[in-house]
């Protein structure tokens, strides 16, 4: 019944506003690209609880893909599966096919640490190590075997510049990483992730604890590094998704009345302008217009 009403409303809208032909000059639409991740019928379990059901999507190179959806819909779970961070949770397992550049992420001979060196992650709450700023950034390269001080200096400077933090901290690299403000600490964590030169950067609500100015800086950062990395960001803030992402995946919660279980599903996935401008699924429409939480 509700869906019919939604359909009717969409039709009415379309009658009032004539659709203009989209000119060919729209520069940002990329309909094809190299897929970096290919997930096919992926389901994620915690023990016997099925957290996410049957997700299929592809993440493309040098794009920013946003995962949006209500609480408990599994968007963070799917994100963490992409770099095997979910392994840290006892009882977590996956079913289905998760491929990174054609190779299965969960094959028996795959080393999670190798995966995580290629696919980095920035967390919701900034988590700088209780070490100096320099040691924070140099941590990753040191793991990879870089010991030469000159090389490390160069890496630290480059990473901090990429994260737009160099000017603010260049005179206090040996001060504690914990002494930075929220926005600076988050940029420090981003610089730390970039220092190992990953292929992909995953971000789990990186700006949710930050004020608008700090958020804006990080969004600009994302635009700048997009050409060298592939970014997947989970966000609660729909305006952030529209400002920043090329593609958006909308997840929602599927409630099973009989067994009273909830599981996350992927509802719709497409170009951001289409998801927010002309959503195909009524659930997407309800979520992005704020009618449903």
């Amino acid at each position, binding site marked *: 019944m509700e869906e019919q009403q939604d359909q009717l409303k969409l039709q009415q809208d379309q009658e009032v506003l004539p659709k*203009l*032909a*989209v*000119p060919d*000059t*729209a520069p940002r639409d990329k309909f094809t690209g190299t897929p970096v991740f290919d997930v096919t019928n992926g389901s994620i379990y915690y023990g016997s609880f099925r957290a996410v059901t049957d997700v299929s999507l592809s993440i493309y190179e040098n794009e920013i893909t946003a995962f949006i959806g209500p609480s408990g819909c599994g968007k963070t779970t799917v994100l963490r599966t992409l770099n095997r961070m979910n392994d840290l949770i006892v009882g977590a397992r996956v079913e289905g096919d998760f491929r990174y550049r054609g190779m299965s992420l969960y094959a028996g001979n795959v080393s999670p640490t190798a995966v995580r060196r290629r696919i980095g992650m920035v967390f919701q709450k900034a988590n700088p190590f209780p070490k100096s700023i320099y040691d924070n950034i140099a941590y990753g390269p040191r793991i990879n075997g870089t010991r030469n001080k000159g090389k490390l200096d160069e890496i630290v400077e480059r990473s901090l510049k990429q994260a*737009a933090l160099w*000017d603010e901290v260049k005179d206090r690299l040996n001060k504690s990483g914990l002494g930075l403000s929220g926005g600076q600490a988050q940029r420090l964590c981003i610089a730390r992730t970039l220092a190992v030169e990953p292929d992909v950067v995953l971000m789990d609500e990186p700006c949710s604890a930050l004020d608008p*100015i700090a958020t*804006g*800086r990080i*969004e*600009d950062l994302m*635009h*700048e590094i997009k050409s060298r990395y592939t970014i997947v960001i989970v966000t609660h803030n729909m*305006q952030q998704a*529209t*400002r920043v992402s090329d593609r958006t995946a909308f997840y929602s919660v599927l409630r099973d009345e009989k067994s009273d279980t909830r599981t996350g599903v992927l509802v719709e996935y497409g170009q*951001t*302008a289409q998801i*927010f*401008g002309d959503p195909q699924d009524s659930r997407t429409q309800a979520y992005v217009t704020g009618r449903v939480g």
Partner: protein
Amino acid sequence: MVEPRQEFERDLEAIEAKVIELFAMVAEDLPGATQALLTGNNDVLQALTEREQLINALYPEIEELVNREILLQAPVASDLRFLLSVLRIVPELERSHDLVVQIASRANHILGEDLSPRTRGIVERMGALASEMWRQSVDSWYQRDRSAALALEERDDEMDELHASLVAELASGRMALPVTMEMTLVARFYERLADHAVNIARRVVYLAGPVKEKPAG
């Protein structure tokens, strides 16, 4: 330190540039059209029709760009006022250029000599006034000048008077019937052009935002 929302800024500047382009086309072509009408010169029409093609491509392009910015950037304050104002004036600009082309195309239908001296005089003055008003309108947009609306409304009254005199002159029946009918249309075109100029200036009042209160003392 990089300014935030640089891409958004660039997009807004691109839209402004295109709007000014549209404005320029109307403002430039208007005197030429008046000239073509009065001298019966057909060559101008060719150039104007080509311009019309450009505008027909430009106008939906601007609208699409604005739609996209409103969708993706969630603008507020002056950004929102700017984008909404662009959406409102672009149709007016497009119709204005249509009118300009119409005026020039009348040169096909009448010969310059057919016009009575009085008609010619009024038309010249109407043409000049319309050009003047358009120049003022462009300036008011460019400078976000909210006071221009009032000035333009007064000049619109002037245009209405000229229109009335032209109609009276045409009603006197001094010229051939076909010519009279054409000129009635032309009178209407100029009057509509003036109206569009005023409308745009009124939009600028919204665009410029509320009058800033002076602090007390």
